[in-house]
């Protein structure tokens, strides 16, 4: 049993509150990905779980034991540090073998395990080097290898692949997924890579300034963000936000365009009749042909960014700039007007002040209901 639970977990540095009372239950064998802006407390949370940072408030359990006072060694976790923390005086092999040796694994078992991990990470030819003789990505892979040679109760990964190229990252990601399926260890994984988060996670936790903003499956956080923050944070390029007024027929934008609302969205908008809402539309939910679209928006092309696999078009609509994802062969002329269709039902509506999704009961109404 290696579920992990945080109860009102807090961390303060002096008067700075860095982690502000997190509650989170991670099930045994669950793969949880932690995302959030730089400096929001992801590493700190991981480090508290590992026992490297004192806990200022609340408690952490691994399985059924409160580990607040347990030394790191006894929590049986493995960790990839964001800054690698390789032992500079040991070779790559020794770095990776160290925890096995310390934990009393029979000497004969160690080399094959290290070898296996090293091969998986493509660093088998570097085993005799010292960290100082490695490239950045190689160091990061050693840090990764050091964690995965072990079979701990919980794995903690702090941006383990940030310095790897896309191809290698894809490979290692696949290996991590396999590893997780094979040994089913609980994993807590910090990343800034959307694809990693979406493909690896059972659940994604979005942190913001030391608070949990939303927890959910990749699908949930992507498709039903709870707030402007989550909507804007998950997904790249980021969701576009526009202000609109709710009218009887739908949403009226500053540009004069009208987008009719249907189904759920229409229901959500009812209490906002005549008032402004924030509308979120993802770049990939526009299309050039308006067949079957809910409505269209018109704007002026500002920038065209061909990415190879797609083309991003920056479109000035009223005061806002929308980023629209187009197929790679789209080449709209800069300065020209362009009409984009919005796919039906793909809008997200948010309260402009609380920035929370209209899907959700408003905090006050929730209170009233409770």
């Amino acid at each position, binding site marked *: 049993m290696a579920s992990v639970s945080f109860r009102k977990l807090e961390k303060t540095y002096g008067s700075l509150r860095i982690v502000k009372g997190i509650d989170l239950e991670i099930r045994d064998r669950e793969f949880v990905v932690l995302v959030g802006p730089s400096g929001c407390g992801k590493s700190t949370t991981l480090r508290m779980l590992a026992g490297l940072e004192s806990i200022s408030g609340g408690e952490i359990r691994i399985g059924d034991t409160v580990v607040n006072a347990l030394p790191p060694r*006894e929590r*049986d976790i493995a960790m990839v540090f964001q800054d690698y923390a390789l032992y500079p005086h040991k070779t790559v092999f020794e770095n990776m073998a160290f925890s096995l040796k310390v*934990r009393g694994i029979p000497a004969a078992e160690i080399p094959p395990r290290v070898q296996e991990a090293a091969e998986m990470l493509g660093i088998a030819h570097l085993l005799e080097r010292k960290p100082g003789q490695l490239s950045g990505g190689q160091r990061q892979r050693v840090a990764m290898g050091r964690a995965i040679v072990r*079979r*701990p109760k919980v794995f903690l990964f702090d941006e383990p692949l940030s310095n790897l190229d896309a191809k290698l990252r894809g490979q290692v990601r696949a290996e991590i997924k396999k590893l997780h399926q094979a040994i089913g260890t609980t994993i807590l994984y910090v990343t800034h890579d959307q694809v990693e988060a979406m493909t690896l996670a059972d659940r994604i936790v979005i942190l913001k300034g030391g608070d949990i903003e939303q927890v959910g499956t990749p699908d949930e956080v992507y498709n039903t963000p709870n707030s402007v923050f989550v909507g804007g944070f998950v997904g790249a390029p980021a969701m576009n936000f526009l202000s609109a007024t709710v009218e009887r027929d739908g949403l009226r934008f500053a540009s004069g365009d009208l987008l009719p609302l249907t189904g759920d969205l229409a229901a959500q908008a009812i209490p906002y009749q005549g008032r402004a809402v924030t509308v979120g539309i993802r770049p990939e939910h526009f299309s050039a042909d308006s067949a079957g679209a809910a409505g269209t928006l018109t704007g002026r092309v500002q920038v065209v960014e061909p990415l190879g696999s797609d083309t991003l078009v920056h479109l000035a609509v009223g005061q806002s700039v929308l980023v629209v994802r187009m197929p790679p062969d789209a080449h709209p002329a800069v300065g020209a007007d362009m009409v984009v269709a919005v796919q039906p039902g793909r809008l997200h509506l948010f309260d402009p002040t609380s920035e929370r999704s209209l899907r959700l009961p408003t905090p006050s109404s929730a209170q009233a209901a409770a």
Partner: protein
Amino acid sequence: MTAPNRSEGRTSPLVRLLDLSETGLAVLLLAPAALLLALIIVYPVGRLIWTSFFNLSLTSGLPASFAGLENYGLLLRDPIFWETTRNTLLITVVTVPGALFVGLALALLANLPFERKWPVRLSLLIPWALPLSFAGLIFAWFFHSDYGVVNDVLRRLGISGVIWFNSEAWAMAAICLTIIWKTSSFMALIILAGLQTIPRSLYEAADVDGAGRVRQFFEITLPLLKPSIIVALIFRTITALQTFDIPYTMTRGGPGSSTATLAMYIHQNTVDFLDLGYGSALAVVMFLLSMAVTFVYLRLIRAKR
């Protein structure tokens, strides 16, 4: 894939002991040092302080009698106490910065990328490895007006030699030079060790930022060496305040007692004159002096944090 490994079952009771709270562990770790210090220093020092309140002169033939602060009063009126204290402070004020600068220079030079490092390292070590008592003798001989190599060199340069030990100023100068020579390697050793831990990448960054050597020295080397330098300074100062062997062997404090130090005076009073009471009082005063200095330095360290 092997089964998950569970290791905590093997934790031995001894290892458990080491998982005490931070304070518990700290107490455990400090215990050996504390015990040794208590045995070798605290108890004797207690006796020393106790003795300083007694009239205890073994040459008087009288039994020890409680004297209160009499020894301390005596000391304040003792011109030799003041003279030796003045000499000691002079030596400290001259040789500590002297050794710091020379030591710093030596360390920086020794840290240059020589193809062969060992001759440099050896020349750093030899002064330090030369027993103190003999260093004094050797330098007394170097400064000897007839047979000394210093005067010989001066004469070869066409300067008539000085009778170093016939003059208070020259004798003091010779002593200070010797002390600086002998102790700068202590400084250099500590500073060199500090230098070796400064990551090279910082110099690379500074290079790219456009800082020249001198700038790098003041902006990177020196600030990062500060802890090492303070450690070296603390101990150099304390040992300077305790200066004994070199003037003892070079001049015996002469001419007159113009180069005698407080430590020599304490030694004289306790070991030669067997005036344990008075000697102890002197030692206590010297201790207070060094403590005061130490506190100033510790302030400096703390200011850093």
